[in-house]
């Protein structure tokens, strides 16, 4: 709608006027006695009276009966006429209508139309935005209206509805997305137009983004989308909030959802109004939830709280747009009590306890271990429609606070063991240049400054040091159309300067300043094989400097002890730097092919990808260390070469009468450490999902009735590393060093989950009812870190009321 005013492509679209060649040629007509066999036909041409240009797609009608439109040179052709004489009515948008009496025996007419003085009052052009640098990328978008999103409380959960996206969980509330096997800082998340600035180094740090504040979720599966900067080895996730419309009346929507498992309540609301050149919107949402339960027992301490607020204003003038937005998301997430373990012996006990230790009756209370996060975002953006191209300027400010509380002794229990505050300033400047030599594209600069600080008072040596990052990047992305296909190429130069100050395990200060510079690039093409089939191919080269945790972590984290690349090597613990231990940046080469087919109710999409990552950083067990607290496995960060390959398949079919609707999603992934010939822990297993939905336009007073069933089968992960049970590390014949990737437990069995739902609208209300895990299946998820300790939640009834005005 009016938000399209803010999208550069629309402006370009309006600015571009099609040019047509003037052609002159013989105009001819046939004439017959056709009153018997309707064989009369004739041709003609429609031309602008003022300019003499042919008018394309003008409408020509005969006696309000037969009709035709003009072709690109202004010619029309009428046949099958049963009369020799008739009234010819010619009309064209923006021109005066003309009626001409014609006889087939006359010469073919050339009709001159004169522009109408009374032009249309307004023109609304709706067009899907083709983001420069992304046309050749395989991407999928999910909208808020998708029935699978009812009751979704985390971003990771929402994104799971997209083919190729999985989740990595630490319990039920800490959920982060995995794209093609990669997660955390190998995915770039763009939230409200800004790179989400958070502590994304730990698997248990979920992005602080409330899916209830978003309108669309898009996953770009290619690597190295030059516009978004480095680190997108797996892809880019774009989360867009709704945008207020200009000239919109005061309107809003509100939704309230209650659910049985966790006895949770969730609400959201949106209010928006637009004026001639100004519009505003406010949003709020919240979740209040207690302990979840499996089919057999409670999951103690899995409650959550979330509050979000957001406000956006937009201002529009001719050639100028500006917008200012602010959002805040605060979360408090409980982590399963029974997942806290001490040494290896405790871990062994925890693996066997069923239900997990510390299981109690239902409660809304959130105790330790838990996480408290707060994320503030301020975004100020402006775009100028220059005589030559379009200029976009965006400033972003993000403040991210993360506190993680463990089960600790005495008064330390009230202190967080991790307490970090991360401030991010970013500046993005982009110039979309006008078409030049057949090229269209953009040039941009991005700067970012991040300051991460440990908040004192944790009574524990900080797991990661303080650091300041300064990043800069320049990119150029160009597209060119050839006969039938488009080629897109982009190149980007990035640098990151890091200044690190931390404390080692003897509380001594260490400092280091280092930098990484690299080039990333992408090359892609898109070709319409036919009007129904589109083929895309994209080769992306992306890179990622090691994260602070990968370099500097030292100490106990969850039930293992971890040492970063610059804190440990071959039995030596000291603080290394780039001179004493070189750590090359990760480089990823990802090739994605996709084929999309769309026809008569069918929509098929296939994506095949291969991703080779050089110097892939991962942590692997190195051995067992004996401490006063007993034996612990210790993990070290290492580099290897990895391959991730696979395919995503999606099929949508809408029946002829649009009553029955089918969806199939299939995700296949193969991942391997090719240097050591081993598997990684925690790769999402193969998944297949099927949804069937029945739609009834109306039933009595009810409108738009929908009933559906979703089935999802997750296979057992066959690409799991070897299993070494805890007992092997203890006792007299204990394994001292490991040195290869292993897991403490076998990968869980495959499982089938079934959800059913029904929804209907009554006037401005919409009621939705949904049952998750209808069969109350007992299962464990391979990519949930808590699979060692507890089952996943059981059946869940959700009811939701949606009101719109």
């Amino acid at each position, binding site marked *: 709608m009016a938000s399209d005013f803010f999208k550069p492509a629309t402006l370009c679209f309006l600015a571009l006027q099609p040019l047509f060649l003037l052609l002159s040629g013989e105009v001819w007509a046939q004439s017959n006695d056709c009153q018997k066999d309707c064989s009369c036909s004739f041709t003609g041409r429609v031309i602008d009276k003022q300019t003499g240009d042919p008018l394309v797609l003008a409408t020509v009608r005969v006696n309000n009966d037969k009709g035709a439109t003009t072709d690109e040179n202004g010619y029309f052709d009428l046949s099958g006429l049963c009369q020799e004489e008739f009234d010819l009515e010619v009309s064209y948008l923006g021109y005066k209508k003309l009626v001409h009496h014609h006889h087939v025996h006359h010469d073919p007419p050339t009709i001159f139309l004169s522009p109408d003085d009374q032009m249309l009052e307004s023109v609304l052009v709706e067009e899907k935005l083709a983001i420069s640098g992304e046309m050749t990328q395989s991407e999928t978008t999910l909208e808020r209206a998708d029935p699978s999103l009812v009751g979704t409380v985390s971003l990771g959960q929402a994104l799971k509805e997209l083919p190729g996206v999985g989740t990595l969980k630490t319990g039920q509330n800490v959920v982060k997305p995995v794209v093609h096997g990669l997660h955390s800082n190998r995915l770039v998340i763009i939230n409200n137009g800004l790179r989400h600035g958070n502590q994304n180094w730990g698997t248990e740090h979920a992005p602080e983004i409330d899916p209830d504040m978003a309108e669309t979720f898009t996953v770009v599966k290619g690597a190295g989308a030059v516009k978004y900067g480095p680190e997108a080895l797996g892809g880019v996730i774009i989360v867009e909030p709704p945008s207020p419309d200009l000239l919109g009346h005061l309107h809003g929507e509100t939704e309230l959802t209650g659910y049985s498992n966790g006895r949770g309540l969730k609400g959201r609301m949106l209010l928006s109004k637009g004026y001639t050149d100004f519009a505003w919107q406010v949003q709020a949402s919240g979740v209040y939830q207690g302990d979840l339960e499996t089919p057999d027992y409670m999951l103690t301490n899995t409650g959550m*709280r979330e509050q979000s607020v957001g406000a956006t204003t937009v201002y529009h003038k001719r050639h100028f747009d500006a917008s200012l937005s602010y959002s805040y998301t605060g979360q408090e997430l409980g982590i399963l009590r029974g997942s806290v373990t001490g040494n290896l012996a405790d871990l062994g006990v925890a693996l066997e306890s069923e239900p997990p*230790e510390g299981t109690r009756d239902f409660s809304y209370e959130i105790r330790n271990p838990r996480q408290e996060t707060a994320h503030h975002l301020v975004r100020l953006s402006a775009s100028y429609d220059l005589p030559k191209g379009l200029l976009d300027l965006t400033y972003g*400010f993000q*403040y991210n606070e993360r506190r993680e509380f463990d089960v600790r002794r005495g008064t330390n229990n009230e202190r967080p063991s991790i307490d970090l*505050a991360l401030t991010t*300033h970013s500046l993005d400047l982009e110039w979309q240049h006008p078409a030049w030599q057949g090229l269209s594209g953009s040039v941009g600069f991005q700067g970012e400054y991040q300051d991460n600080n440990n908040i004192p008072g944790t009574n524990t040596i900080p797991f990661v040091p303080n650091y300041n990052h300064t990043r800069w990047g320049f990119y150029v992305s160009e597209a060119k159309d050839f006969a039938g296909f488009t080629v897109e190429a982009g190149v980007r130069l990035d640098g990151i300067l890091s200044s690190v*100050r931390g*404390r080692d395990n003897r509380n001594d200060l260490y400092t280091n300043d280092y930098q990484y510079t690299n080039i990333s690039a992408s090359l892609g093409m898109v070709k319409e094989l036919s009007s129904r089939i589109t083929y895309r191919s994209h080769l992306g080269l992306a890179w990622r400097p090691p994260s602070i945790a990968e370099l500097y972590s030292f100490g106990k984290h969850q039930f293992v002890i971890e040492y970063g690349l610059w804190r440990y090597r071959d039995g030596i613990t000291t603080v290394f730097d780039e001179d004493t231990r070189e750590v090359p940046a990760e480089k990823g080469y990802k090739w994605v092919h996709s084929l999309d087919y769309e026809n008569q109710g069918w929509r098929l999409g296939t994506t095949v990808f291969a991703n080779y990552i050089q110097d892939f950083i991962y942590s692997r067990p190195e051995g067992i260390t004996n401490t006063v*607290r007993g034996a612990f496995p210790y993990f070290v960060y290492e580099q290897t070469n990895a391959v991730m390959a696979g395919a995503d398949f999606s099929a949508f079919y809408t029946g002829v009468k649009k009553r029955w609707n089918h969806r199939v999603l299939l995700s296949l992934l193969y991942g391997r450490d090719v240097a050591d010939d081993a598997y990684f822990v925690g790769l999402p297993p193969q998944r297949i999902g099927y949804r069937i939905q029945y739609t009834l336009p109306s039933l009595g007073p009810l409108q738009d009735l929908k009933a559906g069933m979703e089935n999802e089968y997750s296979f057992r992960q066959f690409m799991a590393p070897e299993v070494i049970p805890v007992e092997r590390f203890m006792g007299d014949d204990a394994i001292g060093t490991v040195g290869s990737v292993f897991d403490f437990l076998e990968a869980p069995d495959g499982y089938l989950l079934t959800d059913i739902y029904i929804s209907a609208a009554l006037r401005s209300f919409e009621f939705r009812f949904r049952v998750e895990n209808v069969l109350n299946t007992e299962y464990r998820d391979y990519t949930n870190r808590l699979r060692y300790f507890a089952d996943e939640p059981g059946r869940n009834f959700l009811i939701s009321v949606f009101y719109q005005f």
Partner: protein
Amino acid sequence: MNINVMKKYQLVWALIGAMAFTSCGDDDAPDAENPEEIITGVTLTFTPTGGGSDLVFTATDPDGEGPEDLAVSGPIQLSLNTTYELSIGMEGLDGEDIGAEVAEEDEEHQLFFSWTDGLFSSPAGNGNIDNADDDVDYLDVDGNGLPVGLLTEWSTSATQGAGTFRVILKHQPDIKSATSTSSDGETDVDLTWVLQVQE
């Protein structure tokens, strides 16, 4: 809800503070923390109740969570037919007294013991790590009347013998009860010494 009004204001202040100070430079090193979590040393002091000098044995791990193994002084050598009071002390990285903290939080801590059967005449058996109901002569109790184990009594057997002596300290917040065992809660200490009972 835990994020209350105070906290919301805190966030706003933090926000303003962060905006004002973030670009101020790179010299903001983290403060030195007092790491109370990590126990780097455990001391066993056996005091003969009939008089005589204390016998002291230690286990230390100066690098805490570092990969270096811990050093155990020993073996523990006790005399035949003697009764000892065993007091257990613990210290942290910066030398702070964690034993005192445990004593303060005694309602959520318990020490468990196991040893090679036959080394002691009292308590009999092999200790309460495998079975919480087995005998250990605790000399201290917490506010709920449950044993703690920072102070215990041991009488050696009349015959010579050698074996092992294991001490486990469990942190059991909201868990410690009359029926809790050595597998409940988190382990703060788990150490094994060689034990000899001799002339």
